[in-house]
């Protein structure tokens, strides 16, 4: 490619972008001198953890940051021959939604609740293309059709609340596409969606980009998504781009220690566990006072004196393509990537063996929520079958993973076991004792829970020490204040915090630290079983790995059993001995972890695994996948027969009338599908 061609090919050329936020606490430089290019029609990804500046970069390009608090500077932001950094606001407005459009993370809140979908799609058409309302309506129907929403004529007269999450995101894409822009910026477009819906939306974006030649900047924290869809990748850390290259370069031969660490700290869906996860210790720097030099220095396993100087962006070693990296030791990092965070053999540790004794036995558990639906003046009661006839057991020291999409009943099952909600039917035995309302208090000590959101599950008005001391006091586990405080210190050390943190309030801790406090609180009662309800889903990948390792270490040391509830299939595979797949309150498949992932039998399990992308572009390129169509049905009105029948690629009439039993496909491997017989 010669120079002029290259010039024509570049759609967006950003040089030295800086964004500063003026806050009460000081100036935060959220984007610090980033430069990058987007070529016409390409799929570029910006990847990084929360707070790294990836969304701010996108919003600053669109000039959508609050003007009072955010100051944007750049040497140039050339978009299709126009410098956006000096463009007057009136002309910038003409560009927004016309040539650059944006899709946001939260489809639930990004659409105006009081305007019809049609109205929201036609607005840019009328504003930018000066269409009449009638012309715009015709185009809106065309667009709705294009993004795969059935029944477009009726749909454009509806309001956002009548759409499901996935449909709303499709509508957002239709709005973005309306004027056939040259660039679409998608800011975490699927983070709020279930994995089967995520696959639909990303396929749609990719398809549109390919067909219409629209360039896409995909901002995400999900490495699997990046590997599956991006042509090129920018990796951001603490407000800077630290590595950039083609997707195969970044995943195949990462040269920045942070990129290496990021790749190593995510568990793999497609491979059996190799051992403990690699972790990047510590947490990203505070951008109010970032460290001099390389910002990754404090967490880097190979940092040295020189790293106190900011490393220049250089071409990565041994590459002729556009692969650049900002690290003094990139050559060493690239060559030693596999052992940078401890060699695989050194950290290899099989999942600890579990005992044989059954600790928790759940038999025929049903959890129905009786809600009333108003229809006119009458209201009638409807049972939502959150959990419908579920049986499983957990042995001592064992981890049983409960996995499924939203509304599948995994959380309700956990709450029912703990009797946080009293189960509708079924027997729950703990250590041989049948639990009921009367004796649950006696076993509360032995069964503890860790919640998803470390931000809202700790009382903000209590110090960490008080939070941990309270259960010890209530259950009279230690006599006297000083003995209790000793125990608090012990617990904090056990979960990788420092005893002095007992004096802190939860808001003074980071998300990962708070989740550690949540774990310590559960441990305070010396339980034998902990129900972990999405314990890592609110955390960044590097912190997530730390917490997963901590949970495993505690299991080894204390012989704990876990019921691990999560929607992330890879995490569940990594941590669980056995896995239960749920869908709309029903168990679809049960099996030993590796068997279930390598040889899934139920069409839903297969589709679920197909939908989740793997962080390896080589594998993703050649992957054959079945993408489920349609939405998850409302639990208010579940399909008759097999609950999966409305979306199942193998469905026959029989499936719609018969509820399949969970039958043993092989020893310890149960499948609830009439199509799957025992082998």
């Amino acid at each position, binding site marked *: 490619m010669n120079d002029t061609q290259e010039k024509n090919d570049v759609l967006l050329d950003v040089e030295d972008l800086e964004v500063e936020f003026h806050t009460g606490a000081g100036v935060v430089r959220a984007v610090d001198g980033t430069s990058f290019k987007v070529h016409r029609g390409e799929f570029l990804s910006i990847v990084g953890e929360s707070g790294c500046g990836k969304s701010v970069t996108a919003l600053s390009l669109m000039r*959508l940051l609050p003007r009072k608090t955010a100051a944007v500077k750049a040497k140039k932001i050339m978009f299709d021959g126009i410098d956006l950094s000096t463009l007057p606001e009136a002309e910038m407005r003409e560009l927004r939604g016309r040539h650059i459009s944006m899709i*946001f993370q939260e489809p639930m809140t990004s659409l105006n609740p009081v305007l019809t979908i049609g109205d929201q799609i036609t607005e840019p058409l009328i504003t930018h293309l000066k269409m009449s309302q009638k012309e715009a309506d015709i185009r809106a129907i065309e667009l709705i059709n294009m993004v795969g929403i059935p029944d477009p004529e009726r749909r454009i007269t509806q309001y956002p609340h009548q759409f499901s999450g996935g449909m709303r995101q499709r509508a957002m894409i239709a709005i973005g596409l309306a004027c056939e822009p040259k660039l679409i910026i998608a800011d975490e477009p699927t983070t709020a969606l279930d994995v089967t819906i995520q696959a639909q939306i990303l396929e749609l974006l990719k398809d549109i980009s390919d067909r219409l030649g629209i360039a896409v900047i995909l901002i995400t924290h999900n490495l699997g998504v990046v590997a599956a869809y991006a042509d090129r990748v920018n990796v951001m850390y603490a407000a800077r781009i630290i590595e950039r290259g083609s997707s195969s370069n970044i995943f195949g031969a990462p040269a920045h220690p942070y990129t290496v660490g990021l790749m190593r700290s995510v568990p793999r869906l497609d491979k059996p566990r190799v051992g403990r996860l690699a972790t990047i210790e510590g947490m990203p720097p505070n951008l109010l006072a970032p460290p001099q030099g390389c910002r990754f220095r404090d967490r880097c396993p190979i940092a040295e004196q020189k790293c106190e100087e900011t490393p220049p962006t250089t071409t990565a070693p041994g590459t002729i393509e556009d692969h650049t990296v900002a690290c003094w030791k990139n050559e060493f990092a690239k060559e030693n990537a596999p052992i940078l965070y401890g060699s695989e053999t050194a950290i290899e540790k099989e999942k600890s063996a579990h005992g044989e004794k059954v600790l928790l036995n759940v038999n025929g558990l049903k959890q129905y929520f009786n809600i009333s639906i108003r229809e*006119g003046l009458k209201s009638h009661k409807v049972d939502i079958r959150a959990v419908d006839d579920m049986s499983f057991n957990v042995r001592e020291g064992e981890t049983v993973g409960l996995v499924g999409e939203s509304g599948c009943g995994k959380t309700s099952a956990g709450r029912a076991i703990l009797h946080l909600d009293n189960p509708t039917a079924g027997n729950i035995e703990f250590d041989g004792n049948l639990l009921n309302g009367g004796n649950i208090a006696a076993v509360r000590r032995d069964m503890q829970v860790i919640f998803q959101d470390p931000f809202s599950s700790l009382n903000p008005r209590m110090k960490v020490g008080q939070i941990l001391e309270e259960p010890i006091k209530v259950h009279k586990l230690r006599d006297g204040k000083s003995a209790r405080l000793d125990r608090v210190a012990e617990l904090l050390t056990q979960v990788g915090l420092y005893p002095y943190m007992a004096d802190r309030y939860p808001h003074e801790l980071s998300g990962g630290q708070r989740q550690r406090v949540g774990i310590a609180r559960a441990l305070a009662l010396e339980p034998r079983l902990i129900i972990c309800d999405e314990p890592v889903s609110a955390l960044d990948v590097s912190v997530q790995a730390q917490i997963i390792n901590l949970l495993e270490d505690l299991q080894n040391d204390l012989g704990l059993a876990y019921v691990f509830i999560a929607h992330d299939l890879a995490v569940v595979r990594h941590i669980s001995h056995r896995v239960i797949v749920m869908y709309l309150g029903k168990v679809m498949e049960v099996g030993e972890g590796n068997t279930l992932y390598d040889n899934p039998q139920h069409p839903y399990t297969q589709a679920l695994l197909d939908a989740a992308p793997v962080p390896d572009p080589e594998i993703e390129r050649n992957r054959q996948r079945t993408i489920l169509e349609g939405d998850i049905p409302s639990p208010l009105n579940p399909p008759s027969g097999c609950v999966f029948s409305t979306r199942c690629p193998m469905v026959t009439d029989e499936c719609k009338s018969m509820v399949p039993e969970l039958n043993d496909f092989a020893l310890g491997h149960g499948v609830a599908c009439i199509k799957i017989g025992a082998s």
Partner: protein
Amino acid sequence: MLRYTAQRLLLVIPTLIAVAVLVFFLVRVLPGDPVEVKLIGEFGDVNPELIYKERKRLGLEDPLHIQFVNFMVGLPQGDMGISLVTERPLTQEIGARITISIELAFFATLLSVIIAFPLGTAAALYRGTWFDYVIRIITIGGLAVPSFWFGMLIIMALLATVGKLPSLDTAGLFEDPMANLYTLFWPALSVGYRYSSVIARMLRSSILEVLAEDYIRTARAKGLYERIVIVKHGMRNALLPTVTVVGLEFAFLIGGLVVTEQVFNINGIGKMFVEAVQFNDMTMLQGLVLIVATSFVLINLLVDLLYAALDPRIRYQA
């Protein structure tokens, strides 16, 4: 929408019945005998027999359940009974004086909305500037100053400047609109100032809240004109909570003008309340409370319907 309206209308009926029942018994729990008060006022010392006869004549000696049945049967026919003092039908008595009160309440509401909307919107759009601070001072003033005192200030100011007060006998709205409005302007302003402060502050905070919503960002990302972003996407959502406040305050005003009507000497039902209590006119009090309660219920209904018109989520939920 039609169905929603019908539903809400049907719900009004049991509410009103409940109000009527409650009012009937509450009034009878009050101490004091209206007949005694009246007769003593007219003749000085009166013998108990006369009081009994008078009570008998007015139906007050009937057993409670008979009185109750009479009252409840009369209501749907538009018969609220007679005043124990003037002995004229309550519908006539109240009807003669309620127009001016409703007019005043309506005028005050209108005035305060006219004041509040620009103030609230401007304060939100220019948040943190001197403009916002000035508006904040004005509105906090409105909340802090009692409206009757503000009314007295107005009267004093009028006397000091124009040297006279608006004429006391009010012309009807349709007879002489200008004179009527001029008479009502000052009392409306004295109540409306406080009222507009409440609305302006509510509007300011709800606009700010709405402007921080994701869908406003979406609207801007579409490249819409800022004016459209604010008016079409912002205001309509921000109006929702504001409508509630406007409605409730209006309903409150109809019965709540007691003091202001005294200050400006307006012959509305606010003054009537005071008189009814003074003379222990049980049935009058009963009728007034019922009227005020009914208007409260009806205005709430109106607010609900307006809400549904503005917000499709409510419309389709029912």
